[in-house]
């Protein structure tokens, strides 16, 4: 159990993912929430690369490539939304943005 191997990478990724998930719910600043999403995405990327190594498959790295692109697009649109909201309301944290609540 304590010899070095690929499962160490998976454990580290689980730790980073858990920290990101907790931060996403605890923090209310939309910018910091986005950073926590990036943390979770990176943890998943690490898992994909580790499994790609474990199973000797290039598919793991390919998926990481696509996750990187989607993450970049997501950040661009998300930050544009934040800027658009901030232009109208000076003090909008994630709890105040309930306009779309059903």
């Amino acid at each position, binding site marked *: *159990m304590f010899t*070095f*191997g*690929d*499962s160490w*990478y998976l*454990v*580290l990724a*689980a*730790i*980073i993912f*858990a*920290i*990101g998930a*907790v*931060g996403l*719910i*605890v*923090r*209310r*600043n*939309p*910018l*910091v929430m986005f*950073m*926590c999403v*990036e*943390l979770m995405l*990176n943890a998943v*990327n*690490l898992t994909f*690369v580790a499994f*790609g*190594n*474990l*199973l*000797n*498959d*290039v598919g793991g790295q*390919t998926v*990481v*490539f*696509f996750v990187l*692109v*989607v*993450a*970049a*697009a*997501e*950040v*661009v649109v998300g*930050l*544009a939304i934040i*800027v*658009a909201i*901030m232009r109208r309301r*000076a*003090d909008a*944290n994630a*709890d105040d943005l309930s306009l779309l609540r059903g």
Partner: protein
Amino acid sequence: MRVEVFTFLVAGAICVGGALGVVLFRNPVHNALSLVATLFGVAVLFIAQEAYFLAAIQVIVYAGAIVILFLFVIMLLGVDRAEALESDPFHLRRTITILGGAVLLVGSVAILLAAGQRATGRESVTAPLDGGASDVERLGRAIFTDYVFAFEITALLLTVAVVGAVVLTRRSVGAPIDLEEFPDGTAYDIWLEDHPGSELEVPDAEDELDREDDPADPDGLGDPVEPEADEAEPAVVEPVGSESETTEAAR
């Protein structure tokens, strides 16, 4: 083997420390810099697993583009304003979340350690990772053969994201702005002060309603152009070039 363990421990410590910094620091700039630490740590771990191309992309795209974008937005909003976004989360929610996170962490780590070094699934036959070529070549071969459709969809996604960002952040002509932030008004307002008497007509809802009820203009088409006034009084009629110039200045 000892070098691998040392690399893993150092990079892993940087990753976890940076992740904790993202969650715990109050200042958004410190959060962003902690995120850089985590991203670099992950890049080092990619190199340790021989994913050299992904490590380079990680540094260029994440640390070079995404974090810079975060910092741009923080500076655009102003650090004080970005920091003031934080509300005190309810203590109950915070406690429950931390408990849930601990359960998630302990559960996943327990499952991983119970599984040991095994992984379900089969080793690749058609696209092995150690096929003799460099990782860039293997990755490129996979992306431009098996995943070429996903690759093209990615191009579409990036285009949509760029257009969406422009549409979201662009302010239409005549829209109200925050006068505390911009005391001089829009660029159009500033331009108007230098060019008095050349207002751009901004159609708005009230104006449209007024026109419908206007007895002098029953068609609601606005002021009719008087044809005989065209050449006789050039000072009254607005030149054609001025309007497009106005539109550009307003944007």
